[in-house]
């Protein structure tokens, strides 16, 4: 049996070695270059070496224990008294573990975002610190007790444990203490949450639409009229990526859709003929084609044969017709039409950066094109999901300009970003948009340099700076109406 074990370990080592060999990076040459200082190229191989060394060490350890077991059997004495070893290891673990925790707070705690660039972030940080204090105390006490008890009360021959099955007073005390702590946290948390989610309705924030798609973001500014046009997924096209209600764009889209429907239904009619043609092609020219080409041909024949293509065509037709219906629905009612197709969209600005004005409340209105995304602004302690079919919003007030943040960090390249935090597909990891917080003047210069996306009747609407919203700086102590 022991032989089997050793043989299997050797086998595992060998298999890992073979895998290692299959690494193109691992060769004597690479090893040499690594020794010469090119550490990056060898990174992978070194870790594989570590793995093998670990395995061999494991094998040696096993052999040692094997010998100790054998000797136990022969002499009847236990060489390895795991009770003592574990007790001491527990003590070592809690000492080194606590040192490790403290070290971690120094080594990686410095990257933690503690200064919030938004007004509401500060109470969140305070809340966080309070929770950290409570949990920190509990963490240290319980972990130390756990391992120190393990050390202190390890088994001793002849000693009997204390028969102590319950103590109602003690139990009531340690039920009530967490209860009180939780009550404090709930009350504080409720206050903080309420202040973030229910804002003073007397203050009118600047509105910016944040549009999420696979895989990127756009911001839409309302332009000089301070109104955002009512966009819809029905109007999205290649020239109108956010789906704004721009009449000439929609006319173009309708034409495209109708042309599509015609060509698709044509293809639907020609499907049997196409099938015959493909089959002929396969039989006559099959011999001269490469395998890859034949595969493609075969696939298309299969797709028709199985009815998959017919199904797809049917679906596409249905989809396009439905879209036309929905567009027509809006246009049917004069009231609806007037509401949607007002001119407010023409001066909307679509940008690839988000610019915010210092100390002015801003409301992000989120829209998603395809799947759920989540707008995550770690530096502003803000996050909200962007859900297709359900508009969401988040309101906050930036209080640190990008320049100040750079100066504070001593990093000239630093910038605020909005990341995607909800898994949304293959490009999820690289879906972000830059945020710049600046003063009113800087903002005005920037917004003047932007061009509205659309032109009405050949006349471009010049972008004008947002009027400084006097209500934005209104008395924040005014009575707050909650809409529970």
């Amino acid at each position, binding site marked *: 049996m022991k032989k089997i074990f050793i043989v*299997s370990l050797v086998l595992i080592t060998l298999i890992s070695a073979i895998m290692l060999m299959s690494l193109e990076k691992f060769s004597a040459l690479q090893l040499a270059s690594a020794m010469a200082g090119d550490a990056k190229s060898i990174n992978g191989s070194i870790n594989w070496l570590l793995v093998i060394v670990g395995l061999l060490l494991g094998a040696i350890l096993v052999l040692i224990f094997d010998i100790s077991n054998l000797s136990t059997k022969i002499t009847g004495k236990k060489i390895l008294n795991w009770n003592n070893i574990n007790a001491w290891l527990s003590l070592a673990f809690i000492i080194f573990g606590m040192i490790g925790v403290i070290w971690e707070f120094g080594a990686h705690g410095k*990257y933690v975002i503690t200064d919030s660039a938004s007004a509401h972030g500060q109470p969140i940080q305070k*809340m966080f610190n309070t929770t950290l204090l409570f949990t920190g105390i509990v963490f240290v006490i*319980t972990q130390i007790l756990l391992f120190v008890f393990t050390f202190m*009360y390890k088994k001793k021959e002849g000693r009997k*444990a204390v028969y102590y099955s319950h103590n109602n007073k003690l139990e009531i005390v340690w039920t009530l203490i967490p209860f009180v702590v*939780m009550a404090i946290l709930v009350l504080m*948390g409720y206050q903080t949450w309420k202040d973030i989610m229910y804002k003073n309705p007397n203050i009118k924030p600047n509105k910016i639409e944040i549009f999420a798609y696979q895989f990127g973001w756009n911001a839409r500014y309302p332009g000089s009229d301070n109104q955002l046009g009512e966009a819809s997924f029905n109007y999205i096209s290649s020239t109108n990526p956010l789906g704004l209600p721009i009449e000439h764009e929609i006319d173009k889209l309708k034409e495209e859709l109708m042309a599509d429907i015609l060509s698709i239904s044509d293809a639907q009619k020609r499907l049997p003929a196409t099938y015959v043609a493909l089959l002929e092609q396969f039989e006559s020219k099959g011999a001269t084609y490469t395998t890859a080409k034949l595969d493609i041909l075969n696939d298309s024949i299969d797709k028709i044969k199985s009815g998959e293509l017919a199904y797809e065509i049917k679906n596409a037709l249905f989809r396009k017709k439905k879209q036309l219906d929905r567009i027509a629905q809006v246009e049917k009612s004069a009231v609806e039409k007037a509401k949607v197709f007002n001119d407010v969209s023409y001066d909307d600005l679509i940008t690839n950066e988000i610019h915010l004005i210092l100390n002015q409340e801003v409301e992000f209105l989120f829209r998603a094109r395809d799947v759920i995304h989540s707008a995550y602004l770690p530096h502003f302690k803000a996050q909200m999901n962007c859900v297709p079919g*359900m508009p969401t919003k988040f309101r906050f007030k930036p209080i640190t300009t990008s320049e100040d943040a750079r100066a504070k960090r001593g990093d000239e390249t630093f910038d605020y970003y909005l990341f995607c935090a909800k898994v949304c597909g293959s490009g999820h990891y690289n879906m972000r948009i830059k945020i710049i917080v600046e003063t009113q003047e800087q903002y005005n210069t920037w917004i003047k340099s932007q061009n509205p996306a659309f032109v009405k009747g050949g006349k471009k609407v010049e972008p004008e700076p947002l009027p400084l919203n006097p209500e934005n700086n209104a008395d924040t102590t005014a009575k707050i109406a909650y809409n529970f």
Partner: protein
Amino acid sequence: MSTTAANLHHDEHHHHESFISKYIFSMDHKMISRQFLITGIIMGCIGVFLSVLFRLQLAWPETQFGILKFFLGSFAKDGVLSPEYYMALVTIHGTIMVFYVLTAGLSGTFSNLLIPLQVGARDMASPFMNMLSYWFFFLSSVVLLSSFFVSTGPASAGWTVYPPLSALPKAVPGSGLGMTLWLVAITLFIVSSLLGGINYVSTILNMRTKGMSMNRLPLTIWAFLLTAILGILSFPVLLGAALLLIFDRSFGTSFYLSDIYLPGQGALSNVGGSPVLYQHLFWFLGHPEVYIIIMPALGITSEVIATNARKPIFGYTAMVISLVGIAVLSFLVWGHHMFVTGMNPFLGTMFMFITLIIAVPSAVKTFNYLATLWKGNLRLTPGMMFSIGLVSFFVSGGLTGLFLANAAIDIPLHDTYFVVAHFHLVMGSSAIFGMFSGIYHWYPRMFGRRMNESLGQIHFWLTFVSAYLVFFPMHFMGLAGVPRRYYMFTVIPEFNVWMDVNVLISVAAIVGSLAQVIFLWNFFSNIWFGEKSVQNPWKSNTLEWTSPIEGIHYNWVGAIPTVYRGPYEYSRPDREEDFYPQHIPGDDGDHYHPEPKRKEAPDVITVSKDKEVVYFSLIKNVFGLNRA
């Protein structure tokens, strides 16, 4: 009733068992528990292996790995993982670990093994349903694993499979056939879980032996009972959610879909659905699910700690009440997964309130464990060490839950590495440690042989330290605003500072997973070569050690032992020995737990043959009618 049972009993003893009826389609609960355990271990190995694959990518992006090329082929061109397949690995790792290892592998194994043995029953209420439960689970595992062989890859929308991502094959390739297989697998899994759960509940309520009143049940059984009830109440909701998703995907309905535009397809025809509806349905299972995972582990820990500390578990009643409290509250907190989905903020307030309250019973449990250790006579066996490890993880991970439960703090932490660290500690590592603890403790009961102690101890320390090294630094990543499920960090300059941490985590993860090789060796080799165990190796009080250690069908030769006291009478001052098994008659009888005894012992072998008996006695028991 009892006469029929006695006759059956007589007959069953003499019938011959073939290989198939003994090892494959077995109806013996002990064999089924072994089947659950071994399938769970295999699934666990696959889950851990997948995590090593994506940890390689996270620590050394753009490095070419032969191992990736070898296993993944075209999904890892030139040995570099593709972003789509990274998503798939993360998704399947999560699914396997949550459902297949920690739900079926943990609860399935130990509920099956311990319920009949510890309550004193000859088998489950319905051995046939029990067998079906395992085979549905097996089928489900096969279907899930088969999705690795689909050309578009397995499901890759995260283990929560939120639509629209999971509903649109054009949005991510894994949402094609791979996702369909995922849904089929989960549907089968739910069937398995329900068959098992109903069985566990009816066995515990109906088939306790004479004297085994509810307040003499070992805490393991209490945990399994409440777990099974949670499962029965919450899994059907997931079934509903999955069915609606299947409808949306395959039959053109719009339960979860609305206002979607996809490049290449244009505006979709689905209007009026809500993706948030799915999240509500999913988390209505999803949150009880984490307690379905952790409660059996806590039950096992209670038993192992009391046995090895040679002390009564501190505050038995408080332990039961806190388990019940956790079980009830777990149904009212699902919304804390959805604070930033755009849900009404008022709901957020309510969910925050209840979630923070659930910390109270959890804290009580922790303190009671500590009090049990205090002035004990601790035998630091591998099982005991894993239980102590569980308590440590439960504290570390549970405390970070207080941050995430607080809606305001959750805003900047939601979907970041902080969450990853939190749940891997409190429900991942902790529950896995409960499972290991159970395996080391009841291995002699399962296989009649002992595991090697030294290997077990090495396994514990390597796993324990590496788990902390893997998950502790992740808290800081989350606090610095690193979102989870990112394929690589090198493209975002701000995240480059985390590369050395990623390397540390990956190396620790590789070491930790290699440590499992020691366990696998220890586990599988000792099934055949291990030292034969004595009847009661841990000197435990509970009934499972009175049944012959070789493991016979119907558990006891002759009468089922009668129970005279609670399960945790260790180191009683009036006794010479430091344990006092439940079945040994004593003069003082109920002196320490003066509670009424259960009058009659239903000595039922296979009640399924007499279905009405099960149902009627279940109803009777629930309404307390059988007292009459």
